[in-house]
């Protein structure tokens, strides 16, 4: 096993006095695929949101490349750790307008490289002739691919995906998973994906982390996990 990209040490998260995550100790490895699986309300989304500091743990430490994430400038951390949400959130304008947002957010604006846009579009499973299309007119599946491509513009090392397929129909979901697998293989991107659907989990492969009631109940490689998984 190669070295850990992200480590969680004794993480607890309370919201309104309720324990959402309890004593989580967990490692995510560089260039690997990880699946957070578990029933609704288990704390999967909350855990994911701690990793790019969209939320803060109540107790515990999170390390990124061995460094406390609180010591990394948060905007820098969020560029290294990209995020795709459950419902695709697209911005006004064309596909190209969406893809150039990350450039425009920088203090010193980078020149937009056309070939970078098309490369990321294609990696996410969209053809380059989508660039001039109105983003609001894409199908839900295409919109979700666009948000993946948009996250890639920042050249992240890690991609967090929170049930990225749940708003998509089955065929579109499978296609998106194929693209995510490809991103992992081609770019060496560390993948951390939340799902509650076993089928998608086994299709993606990688390390499966089973979360129930804010606690990790099982952590195994996908082949072993699905070999002896009776119920979830």
């Amino acid at each position, binding site marked *: 096993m190669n070295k850990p990209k992200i480590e969680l040490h004794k993480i607890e998260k309370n919201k309104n006095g309720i324990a959402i995550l309890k004593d989580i100790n967990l490692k995510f490895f560089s260039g690997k695929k990880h699946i957070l699986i578990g029933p609704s309300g288990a704390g999967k989304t909350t855990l994911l949101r701690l990793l790019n500091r*969209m939320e803060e743990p109540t107790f515990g430490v999170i390390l990124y490349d061995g460094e406390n994430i609180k010591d990394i400038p948060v*905007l820098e951390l969020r560029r290294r750790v990209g995020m795709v949400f459950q419902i695709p959130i697209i911005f006004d304008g064309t596909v190209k307008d969406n893809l150039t947002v990350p450039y425009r957010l920088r203090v010193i604006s980078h020149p937009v490289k056309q070939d970078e846009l098309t490369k990321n579009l294609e990696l996410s499973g969209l053809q380059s002739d989508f660039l001039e299309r109105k983003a609001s007119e894409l199908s839900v599946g295409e919109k979700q691919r666009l948000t993946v491509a*948009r996250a890639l513009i920042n050249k992240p090392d890690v991609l967090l995906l929170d049930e990225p397929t749940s708003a998509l129909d089955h065929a579109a979901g499978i296609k998106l998973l194929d693209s995510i697998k490809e991103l992992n293989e081609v770019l060496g991107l560390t993948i951390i994906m939340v799902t509650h659907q076993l089928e998608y989990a086994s299709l993606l492969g990688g390390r499966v982390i089973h979360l129930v009631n804010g606690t990790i109940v099982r952590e195994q490689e996908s082949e072993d996990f699905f070999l002896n998984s009776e119920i979830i």
Partner: protein
Amino acid sequence: MEGLNFNIIDISYLDLIISLGLIIVVAGISRWQGMYLEGDLIVGAVRTLIQLLAVGYILKYIFAFDRWYLVIFIILIMIIVASLTVTQRQKKRTIELPFIVGFAMTAGSGITVFVVTQILLQIKPWYDPHYLIPLAGMVIGNSMNGSTLAIDRIDSEIKSRKMEIEAYLALGATARQAAGASIRAAMKAAMIPTINSMMVVGIVALPGMMTGQILSGTSPLIAVKYQIIIMYMIALSVAISSYVLTNIRFNRYFTSDHRLKEESL
């Protein structure tokens, strides 16, 4: 002054009492139509009478006393009352809100009134209450309405754009960048009434101040020129105060490390 041949008819106190008859008629209509507004109507009418007479006497005193600190004091009182009014209209009141609104309105009306009275009109003495008080009053009153609209709007925009804001943050946006669309929408909401009134002024409505000036004997052309400047002053002051206000207000929804505060929504 032009229009010297115009003799204003003074209104006696008896005239004022008799004019209350107009309100009695309205009260009658209210009763007849079952609107049950008579109580509020009478209270409102009496308050109008007392408040405006009180202001009249105060202004008369200030004009006669003619001291810069008294003029500034009165303008400060106007800003404080306006800030408290804006705060009172809010559902989510915080301790700092009246200070933020007061700061924004001081910036907006201060800059505008300064530019117009000192650079454009060059009034002498610089604090001449005949100019400073009505101009500041117009500008502060309109900034007050603009501020109310701006706060309402930025609050509702940030709530409804929660997911979009988080999508921006996740891409490495600062809180200010992520709230940019909400801030723009709030400033727009604050500006629209002013822009609309610039569109129709003189056609649909004669502004109260201009009407007053004409009634008191000023040439309509002078009154109109003043009104033009006042409209422009209002536009600038609403723009500045809503800009300052929204750019401070959005912070309450974010932490210093660019996180959207769940509990503030």
